[in-house]
């Protein structure tokens, strides 16, 4: 199969930029990262179907039109990523209302256990972390 260099470059940029954004703290950037990787994945499904074929109209030979299966799969995947992105947006809004910012937080309990293996009281750093979150 001949390789489409433009598609490869576009896919690389989408995945690279998307995963970079996924690593960020701000939920908004994470969301943008997911949108980018989602576009990348859907484009990848398209690319997996091979090069574009002739338009599908009466009289076209079956082998000449492009493979419809990856297109159907990409459509399904687009709908799903769209729906879940909206859910994540709603969640980001909730988070900004409840937590006053949209930072993705650390696991507080994990930090508490790590820092206070024996003592009964919470260490000051964790108390301040809890208060920060309120």
């Amino acid at each position, binding site marked *: *199969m001949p390789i489409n260099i433009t598609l490869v470059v576009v896919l690389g940029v989408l995945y690279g930029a998307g995963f970079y954004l*996924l690593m960020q703290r701000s*939920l908004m950037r*994470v969301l943008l990262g*997911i949108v980018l*990787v*989602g576009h*990348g*994945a*859907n484009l*990848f*499904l398209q*690319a*997996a*179907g091979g090069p574009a074929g002739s338009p599908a109209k009466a009289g076209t030979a079956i082998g000449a039109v492009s*493979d419809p*299966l*990856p297109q159907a*799969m990409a459509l*399904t*995947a687009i709908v*799903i*990523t769209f*729906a*879940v992105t909206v*859910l*994540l947006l709603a*969640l980001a809004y*909730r*988070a900004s209302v*409840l*937590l006053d910012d949209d930072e*993705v*937080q650390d*696991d*507080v*309990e*994990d930090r*508490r*256990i790590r820092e206070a*293996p024996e003592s*009964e009281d919470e260490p000051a750093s964790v108390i301040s972390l809890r208060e920060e*979150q*309120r």
Partner: protein
Amino acid sequence: MTGMLVALPALMPLLAAGVSLLVSRIQHAQRLVSIGVLSVVVADAAVLLGVADARGAVVLRLGGYPPPAGITLVADRLSALMLLVSAVVTLVVLLYALGQRVSDYGRAATTSFHPVYLVLSAGVMLAYLTGDLFTLFVAFELMLTASYVLITRGVTADRVRAAMTYVITGLTSTLLLITLIALVYAATGTVNLADLGEKLAGVDPTTRGALSLLFLTVIGIKAAVVPLHFWLPDSYPTAPAPVTAVFAGLLTKVGVYALIRVQTAVFAHQQAWQVLLVAALVTMVIGALGAVAQDDVNRMLSFLLVSHIGYMLFGLGLFSTAGLTGAILYALHHITVQAGLFLVLGLVARHTGATSLRRMPGGVARQRPGLAVLFAVGAINLAGLPPLSGFLAKVTLLRGGAASGTEMGVVLAGAAVAVSFVTLYALARVWVIAFWGSGKEGSADAERSGQLSPVMTAACAVLVGAGVAMAALAGPLSAVADRAAHSVLDVTSYRSAVLGGDR
């Protein structure tokens, strides 16, 4: 006619979810729909198991398209077994949740729970039955999207924080799964599992290995394989007890099922797979050590859940009939016992008003002897002490490890025994702190929680009792699991059942 039986477990909950939304004003109707539909799914799964065991895989070609092109649903012994146990657990957890809602809110409860729960069940059932990679992705999405909604219902700041991690991790694995499907399609031009197995055999082994590894990573996130488990103990414990129970019992096991199905039918490993065995070892040990360090009982159970995923990977990683039989038995055992323990600890938390061991007043054993018995039986079962189902599953696994004759198999068998003791230690800690003692400090809380709902206690009893029943039926059960393992590894009969013709 039997073909329709395969469609029902996925189709009915989905349709019922719509009906449930329509009748959301009438509480009774909603309950009736959910309970009725899930009961029918249980019956259907039982019939499917009987048919698949007697006559081989039941295949349904949706829309009548010939196999590689259309969507096929397949129920062989393994899917039917998982389906039956999962359907029973979803039904029992639903009853528990209803009991909890009635005693918490009376009649004026919110109504979004039922439809979402039904969608989640539909996703779980579809994942067991699907015969192609893309429908597997759709099933995972049904299940995960419903779980995103369930985990964020009744939002508090703490729950939103945990849900963020959960949703983002879930989404990342979803996007990687789409990528995997694209790669697989580019390499072979098909997504049908049976067809893929044949076509991938002609693909360069390096590419095949890379795809297999990517699939392990994708499912590793969903099944909480160390080091991809970090999200699980963070997010599960924040949800209400029934939601946590159904997540812990089913979601990770669906991942394990997908791993078993795809790694055998598609990638067809011929001998023990070292990468998976190492992952199994690390998962077992790190999960168990994490559990010992925890203070919150639900987090402790979540770490044990991670640890015990390792046992199933161990059985699968051997790629032998004995190992796979162990993995299947372990999955069936673990679905019931893990969900049961989460429910029991949910009742303990309601009774004492605490989930943190440090704040646990103790004395539950004296105040609620019934609850103590349920926890003790469940804990003994999870740790794998004889004579319950955990022991049966572990013995089968250990025999598989020993029979493999490889060093790694023996090392893992040893680690499995050691981890069982650590599990026992972690659970015994809960027993000593929460169940023994005088319990004077917590009496005020105990007054507040009042009587425990009999429905909830009965639901716990059913799940814990399932472990006892599995041990009582050990003979027939391991025979079925053995046959299931044989048919999973017998790839040619799977292919000819799905694709038709002799292969």
